[in-house]
């Protein structure tokens, strides 16, 4: 930490150093990839029929996924904000946070168990004498999975917009006798217009770069995204040149999307008001109430069903024999170690960037530069982790035993993947501290460790805890880089699950999925509780 005695420049130095290191790593990875490539044929990017379709499909599925996720999230979030009395509302909100923490591959397992050929829905349909459909492979499967992940995310991101409407507004609306249509037009829409582009942009990016979902549910060359094509170029054909070019292409598209979002609207600073009951005048009669309840119940059910399916399948599987295997525990330990290291690294690196960016924002009024720094920390959103991992792998290849070092590469890449979330969670409170306490600290001569201990830590405990917990859970469930470099000794729990799924040992896979799910949830809860402490409440 930095104090008054030190020149302010130092506050910037840490962040700039971290960013420079990040940029150097990414650049080195690309250079390594292209130098090691046998041939580089950029013309393939526009000449190859298959690649053109891959790009088109990436956009098509991401657009549909965004439309469905955000389109469905809007009425659900509205219903949730209207119905404060909804039974178990608190739990419901927690439940909607689950998909962010549930490992993709576990969720895919659950989705197959619900929507697959011999899944729950088909069995129910069969029992009712309805035609049994087979639709999980290809676009449909991808859309189902993307909605599972992004509908709850969108609801959670949209909800604060409604909660930021103060009670006075509603009283005013009631006095003016505004009806639902007017409320939408004059109160809700102006707010949503700020938030929806941001949320849609985020969801679009997540779907555009989706990997594990498309890899497992895509079902052939017709449903391939750029991210999967990169994996295929690396894994199937060892075409480093093409992988690098595809990565640059994806980077370009993502950068365009980010620019577009920035253009449409800047990050809205909606601060949800807690505990304000929304006494809106249009709560209406039974019909509206029933519709709201049905919407929320449906959203909850679609989130809950796949997770319940995972738990059920796991419990009815060969629990003892899987838990008796050393392989399971070794993978679990490795995943745990990687998760803790990468989460710490992510929070440390993000904090260094934020120290610099808040300094820029608050004390030097350089808003744009601050935002640019924070965007830089979210670099991984546009750089495919697989390309980064492969580049690092090739760099390390002549120096060390890369197989044994795979976990270290994974720690680094996973930390990068966590950073965008940390920056989002830690940024606002850190900025607020500077706004409110910098002068006080200066006048008291409070700096360095003392300032961190007395001022920052008590206020940042909660977001730090949440950040660590989220990063650890994300890292635990990640199947990315390790899918390329894992070996017997460096099999993480998601990779073990993937191998068991691929070998079609479904019983064992079911138990492994449950173990992985429990590990993620346990890590999340334990870390958040222990770090955030009482400050949470």
């Amino acid at each position, binding site marked *: 930490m930095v104090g008054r005695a030190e020149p302010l420049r130092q506050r910037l130095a840490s962040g700039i150093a971290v960013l420079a290191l990040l940029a150097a790593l990414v650049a080195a990875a690309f250079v390594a990839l292209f130098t090691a490539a046998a041939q580089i044929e950029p013309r393939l990017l526009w000449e*190859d*029929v*298959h690649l053109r*379709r*891959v790009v088109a499909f990436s956009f098509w599925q991401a657009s549909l996924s965004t439309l469905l996720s955000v389109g469905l999230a809007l009425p659900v979030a509205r219903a949730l904000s209207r119905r404060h009395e909804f039974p178990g509302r608190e739990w419901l909100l927690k439940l909607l946070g689950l998909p962010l923490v549930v490992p993709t591959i576990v969720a895919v397992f659950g989705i197959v168990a619900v929507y697959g*050929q*011999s899944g729950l829905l088909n069995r129910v349909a069969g029992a009712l004498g309805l035609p049994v459909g*087979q639709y999980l*492979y*290809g676009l449909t499967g991808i859309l189902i999975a993307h909605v599972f992940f992004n509908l709850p995310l969108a609801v959670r991101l949209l909800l604060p917009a409604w909660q930021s409407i103060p009670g006075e507004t509603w009283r005013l609306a009631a006095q003016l006798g505004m009806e639902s249509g007017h409320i939408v037009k004059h109160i809700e829409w102006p707010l949503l217009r700020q938030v929806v582009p941001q949320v849609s942009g985020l969801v679009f990016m997540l779907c555009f770069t989706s990997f594990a979902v498309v890899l497992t549910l895509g*079902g*052939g*060359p*017709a449903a*391939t995204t750029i991210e999967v094509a990169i994996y*295929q170029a*690396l*894994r*199937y*054909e*060892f075409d480093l040149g093409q992988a690098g070019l595809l990565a640059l292409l994806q980077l370009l598209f993502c950068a365009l999307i980010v620019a577009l979002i920035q253009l449409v609207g800047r990050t809205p600073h909606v601060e949800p008001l807690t505990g304000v009951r929304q006494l809106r005048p249009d709560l209406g009669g039974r019909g509206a109430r029933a519709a709201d309840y049905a919407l929320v119940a449906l959203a909850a059910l679609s989130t809950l069903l796949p997770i319940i399916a995972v738990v059920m399948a796991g419990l009815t599987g060969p629990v003892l024999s899987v838990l008796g295997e050393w392989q399971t525990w*070794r993978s679990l*330990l*490795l995943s*745990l*170690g*990687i998760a*803790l*290291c990468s989460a*710490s690294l992510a929070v440390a690196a993000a904090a260094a960037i934020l120290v610099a960016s808040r300094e820029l924002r608050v004390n030097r009024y350089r808003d744009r530069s601050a935002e640019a720094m924070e965007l830089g920390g979210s670099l991984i959103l546009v750089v495919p982790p697989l390309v980064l991992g*492969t580049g690092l*792998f*090739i760099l390390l*290849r*002549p120096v060390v*035993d*890369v*197989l*044994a070092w795979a*976990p270290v590469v994974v*720690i680094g890449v996973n930390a990068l993947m966590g950073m965008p979330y940390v920056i989002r969670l830690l940024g606002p409170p850190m900025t607020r501290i500077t706004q409110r306490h910098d002068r006080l600290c200066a006048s008291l001569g409070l700096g360095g460790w003392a300032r961190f201990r007395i001022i920052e830590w008590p206020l940042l405990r909660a977001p730090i805890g949440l950040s660590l917990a989220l990063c650890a859970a994300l890292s635990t469930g990640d199947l990315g880089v390790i899918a*390329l470099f894992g*070996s*017997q*000794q*460096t099999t993480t729990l998601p990779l073990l699950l993937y*191998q068991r799924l*691929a*070998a*079609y040992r*479904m019983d064992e896979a079911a138990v492994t999925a449950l173990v992985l799910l429990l590990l993620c949830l346990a890590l999340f809860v334990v870390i958040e509780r222990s770090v955030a402490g009482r400050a949470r409440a």
Partner: protein
Amino acid sequence: MLVRSLITIALAAFAVQAVAQERPTLTVYTYSSFTAEWGPGVAIKESFEAECDCTLEYVAVDDGAALLSRIRLEGANSKADIVLGLDTNLMAAATQTGLFARHSVDSAELAVPGGWDDDFFLPFDYGYFAFVYKKSELADPPSSLVELVEGRADQKILIQDPRTSTPGLGLLLWMRKVFGDEAPAAWAKLRGRVLTVTKSWSEAYGLFLEGEAPLVLSYTTSPAYHRIAEGSDAYAAAAFDEGHYLQIEVAGKLAGSTNQPLADRFLRFMVSERFQQHIPTGNWMYPVIPLPDGLPAGFESLIVPARALRFTPEEVARQRKRWIDEWLAALSR
């Protein structure tokens, strides 16, 4: 310190293997169904360790084609001593990497169709690709590749990706053999019948056993598994008039291996009875030497292709990329 304990936890998981390494370790990269509990890997490891005073360690990758990418990625510093599980279709590409060393085994006596003559690779089993079906589900299976392509679109088939899986590549070459330059058009026609393209053989076969589709690309020897291991006569391979594409699976020694004598010893062991006896009922393929007791009962009822189809490794190496691109273009429509 918190940080130190974190690092300790991370390292603990893979530090375990670093202890107790007095005996030399032979590292064999292979595909996952070889090392699975039901595969031949476990028994072969035991037999070899009993005579070599060494430890045999497998590193498993999904399927044969992924194996080659992995070796290329790791390059000259790879920990692998032996790569086991490529096939003749990938052999020339593998040789071109320059990562493999010549073997010192006399292969003239090996009983593979067409004989064996290659400086770098040795065969360890062979078989013929075929579409396998469940008799009760499919009364009149297709009797030729042409019939398969022209057949009913609602009768789905499960196939593998030629970029990752050696059976997938086998089907690509089979189609080429039968349809020649018309292959892309034939693929476009077949596309409607494909339920899904999986990354590995085991994935497709698993889906088939779950009843997701009535036909799966596998081997003529697959029914032997159900007959011998499960005592079930329910499955059969469809005999195709045009002949069946031959697959010979091979292994090779890495030039960068630090265990050259041990690796040579493994290759000699591989074409001996002690390894080969595990092939018919472990990998469910044909052995490359005549076994003293002949093939296990159950193998006699398998279909034997009238013609074994194959391209030379050099031809495949030359055309593979182009043919795969055609396949991609046909299937991604």
